[in-house]
């Protein structure tokens, strides 16, 4: 079956342009969701649908269509799950950073809720991504953890953003929570390049264990497919966490609409 698929030029050509097309669609739908209020009821459902279809496609492509890797055999297939999720985690943290900066310039519950949502989803994908990385490492390098610079940085980032979420949980006043977590989000994100650089340097002094850098073009195509699939899921997850955060804000923040009508103080001499 595998050989038959490989001889099929159509599949390869399909894989050359379909991830890009799907990516553009996902981004366009996300834009639509952000800018067109009426679209928000149905866009996420379309994105979820795309993701589900792509998951099915991913199963076929990742598990059957693409050939086994030269050195690692079939074990490497986990790369299509592991790598994109770590990317999604980084995207989540970047969106969080953007929201934190924006919030300090202009306070808005939308910005604050999006910050919370993107951090939560970022931590989720990071945790899954790193776990899959450990699962991959065991049969490949013989140990669950190899202090590879990328994974080590990702693991530390995970702890940092868990701390961000912990802070949000431990501050009761919503206004203070929003401001302080914005401060924290900025300090955390700025640490990423410093961390990356230090860990890389630290590891280079000891023996470096290289992860596969040479990725064959067929693998790249499947990776793109998988990345777009996870991006679609990412948007859906963030949207729902955002709604949950907004609902929580609505419960704990007094809305201006609840203010009584204006009154001026009666002039009283005592």
């Amino acid at each position, binding site marked *: 079956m595998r050989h038959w698929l490989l001889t099929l030029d159509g599949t390869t050509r399909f894989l050359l342009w379909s991830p890009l097309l799907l990516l553009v669609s996902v981004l366009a739908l996300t834009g639509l969701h952000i800018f067109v209020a009426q679209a928000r009821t149905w866009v996420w459902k379309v994105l979820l649908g795309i993701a589900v279809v792509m998951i099915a496609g991913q199963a076929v492509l990742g598990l059957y269509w693409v050939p086994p890797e030269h050195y690692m055999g079939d074990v490497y297939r986990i790369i299509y799950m592991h790598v994109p999720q770590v990317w999604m985690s980084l995207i989540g943290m970047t969106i969080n950073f953007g929201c934190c900066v924006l919030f300090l310039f202009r306070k808005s519950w939308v910005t604050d809720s999006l910050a919370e949502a993107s951090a939560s989803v970022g931590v989720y994908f990071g945790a899954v991504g790193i776990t899959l990385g450990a699962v991959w490492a065991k049969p490949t390098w013989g140990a669950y953890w190899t202090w590879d610079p990328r994974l080590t940085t990702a693991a530390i980032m995970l702890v940092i953003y868990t*701390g961000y979420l912990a*802070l949000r949980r431990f501050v009761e006043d919503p206004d203070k929570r929003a401001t302080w977590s914005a*401060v924290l989000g900025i300090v955390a994100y700025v640490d990423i390049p410093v*961390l990356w*650089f*230090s860990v890389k*340097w630290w590891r280079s002094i000891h023996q470096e264990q290289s992860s596969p850098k040479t990725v064959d073009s067929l693998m790249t195509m499947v990776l793109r497919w998988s990345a777009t699939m996870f991006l679609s899921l990412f948007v859906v997850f963030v949207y729902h966490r955002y709604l949950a955060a907004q609902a929580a804000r609505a419960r704990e923040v007094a809305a201006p609409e609840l203010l009584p009508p204006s009154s001026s103080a009666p002039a009283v001499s005592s």
Partner: protein
Amino acid sequence: MQRPTLFSVLVTVIRKDLLIEWRTRARINALVFFAIATLLIFSFALGPDTVLLRKNAPGYLWLGILFASVLSLSESMRIEIENSALDGVRLAPASARAIYLGKAIGNTLMLWLLTLVILPIAIALFDLSVREGFARLLGILFLGCAAISAPGTLYAAIAANARARDVLLPLLLFPVLIPGLLASVKATGVILEGDVMHQLGSWVGLLSAFNVLYWSLGFALFPRVIEDD
């Protein structure tokens, strides 16, 4: 009355903090012994192999300082929250930025002092020799303490007002400190063992860059933490 400059406000805050530390010096004594106890525990936990102990001594030393710093930083903020004294200073008026610099520099000095006190103990305990010069060692220790205090003061101010503050401060601080800690440990190690591969400059570079970054961030962001707008 002439409005004081940022520098004089900064100095006032440092003076005030050092004065309080002096008046409660029993606490500092306890902190020193806590740090020494930590070093002892590492020695026991990690075995009597003296070669190994000497090799890893910089790590143990900095871990001891790190644990002590959490106690030191949270206490430094506790006295400000206690009677809302920080509000009193802020409303004097004193700029939040000056307050940050004052408290962070004060914290750095206290940590550095702590480090200097336990250094001879560590040298004795782990059989260390200072190959690359004492002055350089003191300088590295200072930079490392500054690296802990910059984000530490910012985070301590946040954590002091939150629930679970005793666990929140280390949880927030430790991961962010990793580059600074790494550079401090490596630089200290190189000074103790000798700079065979001329690495000292690079690690000092990383440590300095970390300090510049975090002191700037703290300076920029502290007002948002203590001002209520």
